[in-house]
């Protein structure tokens, strides 16, 4: 691992640790829930790095978007409170099962949504959509909002500058590290993050292919 890569990883962990240090100083009893949310996020980042270093093969399985997204929304609740955002689950013709790895998909969408929340300026609308919709090639799962600072160009820049720069996303104020991790996870699912629209809302997500097994069963 290069020095710049290690520096970039160290920088990513600096933010949640700084947040915990600040939260613990001012009304620590009130801040416990927030400290827990930040801690869980930092642990998730560590788990993703650990998993990547072992290069495990993912065993894909049929999943339903609705159960996955409602699960994720529940996991995001403490982080959403921390960043004063609201998360709505919206499903649009997303009944067909998709092929994926449940835990990796969950981690990917949690990190993506966390990165988006971190990037939002305080004055912007803080309503975010965790959406799934059918497309011609499968089902898109992603994060959508009018306030999104994340688009295809930002994703391209993130990928180009990954591990080479402390701040690889000049168009995002913050949250680029979490989005970069989500991007790496999406690639391990062979469903790289791309820009999509969900009910006219711009956003970023992954296209997952329909599970053929259950289609044959249902036929």
């Amino acid at each position, binding site marked *: 691992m290069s020095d710049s890569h290690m520096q970039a990883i160290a920088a990513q962990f600096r933010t949640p640790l700084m947040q915990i240090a600040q939260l613990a100083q001012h009304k620590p009893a009130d801040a416990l829930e927030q400290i827990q949310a930040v801690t869980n996020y930092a642990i998730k980042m560590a788990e993703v790095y650990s998993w990547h270093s072992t290069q495990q093969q993912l065993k894909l399985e049929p999943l339903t978007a609705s159960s996955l997204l409602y699960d994720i929304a529940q996991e995001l609740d403490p982080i959403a409170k921390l960043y004063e955002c609201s998360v709505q689950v919206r499903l649009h013709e997303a009944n067909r099962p998709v092929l994926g790895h449940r835990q990796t998909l969950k981690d990917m969408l949690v990190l993506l949504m966390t990165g988006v929340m971190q990037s939002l300026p305080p004055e912007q609308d803080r309503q975010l959509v965790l959406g799934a919709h059918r497309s011609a090639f499968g089902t898109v799962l992603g994060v959508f909002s009018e306030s999104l600072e994340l688009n295809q160009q930002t994703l391209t820049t993130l990928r180009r500058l990954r591990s080479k720069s402390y701040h690889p996303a000049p168009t995002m104020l*913050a949250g680029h590290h979490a989005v970069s991790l989500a991007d790496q996870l999406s690639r391990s699912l062979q469903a790289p993050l791309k820009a999509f629209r969900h009910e006219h809302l711009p956003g970023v997500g992954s296209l997952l292919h329909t599970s053929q097994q259950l289609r044959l069963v249902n036929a």
Partner: protein
Amino acid sequence: MILLVEPDVVQARVIRQYLESNGQEVTVRRTAQTALDAIDQHVIDLAILEPQIGLHNGVEFLYELRSYPEWDKTKVILHTSNPAVQADEFQQAFKLLGVEDILYKPQTKLADLLRRVNTLLKAA
């Protein structure tokens, strides 16, 4: 009024709440441009600046700030999480740009930050 320039939403909220609970009036901005707008709109007695601002770094912000005669004497404290700022070259550059003090997170406790803020505001 104190201008807090901090890109991290959570840290900004904690610092603002702490300063306000100790009698200070605080406005928060996340970028160099919105920070300059705030200085234009309000009477800012002191700016607390995290130099690692996403779109512009803190040095660029300070250069721009000091280019306006009416803001040449605005007091600025750096409050940074970046250990690179400890390097001599950065220390000298920030002093030349009129930075009163450089405080490091998380070593500098909120109480220490408040103490420094109060000292500078009293000296004004």
